[in-house]
């Protein structure tokens, strides 16, 4: 069931009403049942997969907790890694690597046909797999004790708001919330409702209204003009941000209604003044995961500068590949890696220097935004050739001058949205208006609801990150 269908709202109300009638143990059981129902609404067959991998991780963690030998623990960790990454690799990457392997064989003169499987990618597999790995790795590292209550563990993995598109929560943050009694918190609940409203606004009004324009341009790159592709690239930048952060806002808001807190995933990323800053603001949960479990495992900051640079590139390439089995994502990750290293080498102390002239800050924000947009071209393109075509067409159009087809609608949407985000940039989310007078608050809510009703694109456009 998708967040943007009325069924979800009905489901949420029913679960919420039942939840606050139950004691803690009952609440946890309810969360597990509701989450399975939520996930099974899409395809009940993949529930078995979710339950199996979750069960394996639960058992592996208990085993790791029971033994002292590091070697034995490592063996158990390998079981978890193989089962999780094996399932992920089979469903997500098998065809990709099979095709690449065949290309290599053909290139060296051996004729072979790729073995391709017709498999459907289980929804949210990349997210819940990484979440599960964070738990087993933390137990292996003795950062936390394994949880004994199987219901709590299933709550942690399958809690429906974050199940299909994150944020990826860490066991040490979320799991322990299911261990304690939860009490209704008025402020949390109202803030959750507000954040959900923001999420719906971002997704249904902004992202879904930009989607047709972006899809038209990128759907027929050969016939689209350079200017059209340029506006579509800017449009995509806002589309993907509002789509993904909209999902996250609905997820975090939903969780707050149950007095559970999920990890923050976005912190006004387009106001970043550098690429390193961007990655502290964009998809925070994933970048934190890679930092914690890949970058630090590779040596982190305790290695030589060249080795650090290599590690950074590895993290970005893996992060690109995490998004999908396509070279375009690898290039997207690689570009971000290069930009990151560029800032790292050229402006190593950029983040400590915050008291600079506002005009310079604006220029830096604009520069960073354009670097990000450039990388988005490969993220949105279906192949490297297509990405290159887009870049060359945009380049030719811009060099030739004579701007045409300025999309006033896109410009206005972007400007209005940036304004609202800018004035709230120091707050948890753009609709954090608890300080307003109640009358003003309610009026604001009504205006937003009417805008959603009046201007939402109701054609079902799935969240972009459902594909990952």
């Amino acid at each position, binding site marked *: 069931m998708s967040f943007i*269908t*009325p069924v979800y709202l009905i489901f949420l109300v029913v679960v919420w*009403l039942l939840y*606050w009638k139950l004691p803690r143990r009952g609440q946890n059981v309810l969360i597990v049942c509701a989450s399975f129902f939520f996930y099974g609404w899409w395809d009940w067959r993949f529930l078995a997969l979710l339950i199996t991998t979750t069960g394996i991780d639960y058992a592996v963690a208990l085993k790791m907790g029971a033994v002292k030998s590091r070697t034995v623990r490592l063996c158990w960790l390998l079981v978890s890694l193989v089962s999780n990454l094996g399932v992920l690799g089979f469903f997500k990457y098998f065809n990709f690597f099979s095709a690449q392997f065949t290309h290599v064989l053909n290139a060296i003169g051996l004729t072979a046909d790729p073995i391709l499987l017709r498999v459907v990618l289980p929804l949210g597999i990349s997210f819940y797999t990484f979440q599960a790995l964070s738990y087993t790795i933390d137990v292996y590292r003795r*950062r936390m004790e394994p949880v004994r209550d199987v219901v709590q563990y299933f709550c942690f993995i399958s809690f429906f708001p974050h199940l299909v598109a994150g944020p990826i929560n*860490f066991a*040490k*943050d979320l799991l*322990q919330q299911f261990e*304690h*009694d939860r*009490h*209704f*918190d*008025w402020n949390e*609940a*109202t803030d959750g*409702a507000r954040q959900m409203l923001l999420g719906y606004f971002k997704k249904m009004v902004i992202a879904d209204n930009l989607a047709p324009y972006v899809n038209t341009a990128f759907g027929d790159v050969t016939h689209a003009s350079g200017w059209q592709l340029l506006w579509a690239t800017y449009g995509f930048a806002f589309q993907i941000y509002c789509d993904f952060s909209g999902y996250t806002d609905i997820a975090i808001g939903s969780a707050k209604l149950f007095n559970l*807190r*999920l*990890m*923050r995933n976005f*912190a006004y990323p387009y106001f970043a003044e550098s690429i*390193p*800053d961007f990655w*502290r*603001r964009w998809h*925070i949960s994933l*970048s*934190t995961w890679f*930092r*914690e479990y890949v970058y630090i495992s590779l040596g982190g900051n305790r290695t030589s500068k060249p080795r650090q640079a290599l590690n950074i590139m590895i993290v970005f390439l893996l992060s690109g590949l995490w998004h999908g089995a396509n070279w375009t994502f690898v290039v997207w990750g690689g570009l971000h890696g290069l930009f990151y290293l560029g800032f790292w080498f050229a402006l190593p102390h950029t983040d400590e220097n915050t008291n600079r002239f506002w005009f310079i800050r604006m220029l830096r924000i604009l520069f960073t935004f354009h670097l990000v947009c450039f990388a988005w071209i490969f993220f949105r393109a279906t192949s490297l050739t297509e990405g290159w075509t887009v870049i060359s067409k945009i380049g030719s159009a811009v060099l030739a001058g004579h701007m045409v087809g300025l999309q006033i609608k896109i410009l206005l949407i972007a400007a209005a949205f940036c304004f609202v985000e800018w004035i709230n940039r*120091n*707050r*948890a989310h753009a609709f954090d208006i608890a300080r307003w007078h109640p009358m003003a608050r*309610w009026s604001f*809510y*009504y205006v937003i*609801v*009417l805008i959603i*009703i*009046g*201007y*939402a694109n*109701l*054609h*079902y456009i799935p969240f972009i990150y459902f594909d990952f």
Partner: protein
Amino acid sequence: MTYERSTNRYPGAGPDTKELFIGVEVPKAPETAAATKKALRAERTAIRQFAIRVVAFLAPLALIVFGIELLLWRTGETWPLERVIAAQEKNLRTFFSRDVFDHGTFRYKYLQVLRRHPQILVLGSSRVMQIRAEMFGAQGEAFYNSGGMIHSIQDLNHFLERLPPDATPKIVILGIDFWWLNANTKRVANDAFAVGVERDGAYAWQGHGYALSGYVRRPNSLGRLVSYSVGKKHDPNAIGLEALFRRMGFRLDGSKRFDLKIPNTAEGWERRLPSPKRINAMFRNGDFPFAFTKGVSRPLLDQLGVAISTLKARHVFVIAYSPPVISGWDRAASTAPGQEDFWKECHQILPEYCRSLDIPFFDVITPQQFGLDDRYMRDRYHAHETFSLYMLRRFCDDPRIRAALPDVPAIAERALASPKTNPLVPDLPDPTASPERDLGGRGKAGEVPDQID
């Protein structure tokens, strides 16, 4: 007591650490301390108050939504198709057309076919919708026009696969659009019928959403809705907003009525006539449905053969024809590159192909062959009812068809000779003259011969 959510702080926490999750100490997280009764009561009160607050916030919105839904229901716009059909069977004057919601033409027509078991069935796109039950005399009671339900040969085959044997008609009048045989014509979906037949727009929440959205964006249109649903402009014969606003919609026999005014002057006719400019441009540019192609697609022709053979195997007498296009199209088709071969081939291959399958085929694509002009065309490729009557009369030149449709020649002669007949609408008997008549269904069409040679 508080507990720390995370032991490590890293840049992933973002620019404003106080606002962030990681590393923040969360207040008020009672662990195992038993909640007192007082605290529990206070919590229950807070939950109730929160729920009341949410309900209070939503109440005005719900009232508006409920009010609009009520008005829409009153117009028939949101009626399920089963209810629409039942209402049409009760009142023969009714006509149905939705405006905001999806028409559900596939399902609406298919349900009618299943319900009525017509013995004369018109199959095709919207270009065959002008053939009416009254054109068939007594056989009209067992007639149904499912025009608008079939948009491609794939649709035709899907329909035949789905049609129960006991609902098989005796005569099928099949309107074949030439572009069905063009492999390059982009269709919305090859399974438009297969998907559409399962859907009723009245049950889709998006339809309700779009209706609301329209009234929020244009509050003035609410006044129009009120006047047409509960005000003076309400017409109990019109079901659906388009039926109310534009006086057009599907009659019970599946044909479509239009509220067209006959121009009194030559200038009036000039304004009304469809312009050939647009169709010429469509041919030139290869716009839908006139996509550029080298010729008739053999696989599609074979699929058409499968459909006709299926009908013949069920002992259905098939009359095939190609519906008309306004004058001048042939010049456009013969001069536009990428069009000429296809259209030429259609004229040659389709009659031969139908002859090989032993079914009559009529190429009526040019109105001039009946001595008619563009006044008989509603738009670029939709004819008026009068044209359809001329066409049926021509069909009856074939002795097999004359035997199968014995009433048509007399009705056509009478109607076309009537001074009340105009290029738009022929003077046909009033279908509602005897509203108590049995609406047919199985066994009510004894006039259709069992065997047609």
